[in-house]
């Protein structure tokens, strides 16, 4: 029972980590918080729901969700961040992305209503179980875990090993210097937003498929918690976001197991506050490479 709860926690944590990776990638490159990120995550579930309702199969729905989320990311970059690129603009950028988030929530409530909408997949995909070493596991959850971990591994390799990743790291280090070396900073920002948003959209799809419904308020509950996890793991630190997500997921699952589930949120946020005060580089980070930003 305990082991199953821990596995559930890891699955939950992998979804947190997917969103937190987007937050941390955007923060690392632009030094700005993207408060519309949680709403792109929320819309991922609804796009999946809509495409399945229109008769698409799950793989097609995943593809559509990825494309739509990527386009939304481009939109957020253009409306909320393009004009506020200076290092001092972090308050303005936070407010504009919050405004985009408000609009996205309100519009999706107009379309789908404020209540959660049920999402059922054809076939027995959502309920099929598999028994490994005496543990009954839902196949879907394992699939979510594996796919999220793979996505994050791919992102990590892209950032570390490819030309795109080198450009991203250069812009993260200093946009002005990167521009001097002939890097198109706007293009890199767009690419970062597309990558982050696709991951958030797929996380939203995973949450909707796993719980069996889409809801318009997950952006402000689940999505905002990923922001705290990003800070716990270290802002701008991809590995930290992954480990922080898994840690929080497991702690949350254990909290529900032990009957103190209603304090899980408080715990996560207080933990984040403590981390920001005591170890601003994050739980796993060091301050060697990056100074504390003002």
């Amino acid at each position, binding site marked *: 029972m305990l082991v199953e709860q821990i596995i559930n926690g890891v699955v939950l944590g992998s979804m947190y980590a997917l969103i937190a990776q987007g937050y941390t990638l955007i923060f690392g490159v632009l030094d700005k918080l993207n408060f519309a990120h949680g709403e792109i995550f929320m819309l991922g579930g609804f796009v999946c729901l809509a495409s399945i309702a229109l008769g698409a199969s799950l793989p097609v729905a995943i593809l559509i969700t990825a494309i739509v989320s990527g386009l939304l990311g481009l939109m957020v970059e253009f409306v909320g961040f393009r004009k506020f690129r200076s290092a001092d603009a*972090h308050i303005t950028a936070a407010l504009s992305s919050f405004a985009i988030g408000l609009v996205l*929530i309100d519009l999706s409530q107009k379309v789908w209503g404020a209540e959660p909408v049920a999402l059922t997949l054809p076939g027995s995909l959502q309920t099929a179980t598999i028994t490994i070493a005496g543990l009954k596991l839902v196949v879907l959850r394992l699939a979510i875990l594996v796919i999220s971990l793979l996505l994050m591994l791919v992102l990590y390799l892209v950032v570390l090993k490819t030309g795109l990743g080198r450009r991203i790291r250069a812009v993260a280090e200093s946009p002005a210097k990167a521009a001097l070396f002939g890097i198109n900073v706007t293009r890199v920002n767009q690419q970062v937003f597309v990558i982050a948003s696709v991951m958030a959209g797929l996380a939203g799809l995973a949450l909707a498929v796993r719980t069996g419904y889409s809801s318009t308020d997950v952006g402000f509950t689940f999505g905002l918690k990923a922001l705290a996890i990003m800070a716990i793991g270290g802002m701008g630190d991809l590995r930290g976001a992954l480990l922080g997500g898994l840690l929080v997921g497991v702690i949350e699952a254990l909290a529900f197991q032990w009957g103190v589930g209603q*304090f899980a*949120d408080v715990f996560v946020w207080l933990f984040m*506050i403590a981390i*920001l005060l005591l170890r601003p580089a994050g739980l796993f980070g060091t301050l060697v490479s990056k100074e504390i930003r003002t």
Partner: protein
Amino acid sequence: MMQDYIVFVGVNMVLAWSVYVILLAGSLSFANGGFMAIGAYASGVLTVKFGMPLIPAALIAGLIAGAVGVVVGFPALRTRGIYLMLVTVGITVSVKAVIESIDYVGGIQGFGGMVGTRPWHVIALVILVGCGLWFLSKSPLQRILDAVREDELSAASLGINTVYVKLVCFGIGAFLAAVAGSFYAHHLIHVTPDQFGIVVSVFIVLYAVLGGTNNMWGPPIGAVIMTLIPEVVRGLESWRPTAFGVIILVLLLIRPDGLLAFREVTTRANKSWVTGKADESKPAKAKSA
């Protein structure tokens, strides 16, 4: 109906000012929704469970929230910029979650039975706070605040205790938000933790930013406009968040200083902390400084 308008407009004006006071020292607070919740619940418990009159209850609630603000703010204000923003988001979420789990104040169902806010309470509060801020803006204190906001390091080198200044502003902001919250709750009769979530905090900040934060008249006017327009224009009520978001976006894009960003006679430096424009007066300021 008229009473509703007066109370809501007045409360929102004071809330916008509570964000403005904190911004005066250069910190952006998303915690004011949380302080408002503390004010609403603390004063509600005092009036309903202990039979205290409203005004002393509101003041005590304000002091409680101010004390919470100072205790939380003391370590939090050491962090700056984006870090402080995250900490204040955390405060609001935590306050809401803690209130939801306390059965004594009704938990998630909410807390009821608070009555007694009269329009003149709110009007008096607005006038008092307005006068206080006006005197502040004419006093030498304003220059200290300007110094702390524009360049903390130089301010500290002039012998200004910057942490103390920011802490006092944070405490006053929390106090104002809590007093406004208690009048708000005693007008609504029944409140739930949901009414004080992070969205409310963001709305309060947006009121202030919409009006413009480089003088004391911007925030309340932003609050009045954003409270009244949806009431006056038929059919806009249900589109409120969308309209609000779009207006804010357009405003940030075309008029980043806010609606009323005229300069007063005082010679203040560049408002880079809210306009997002590059600050020419401090060319040496590196991105990671």
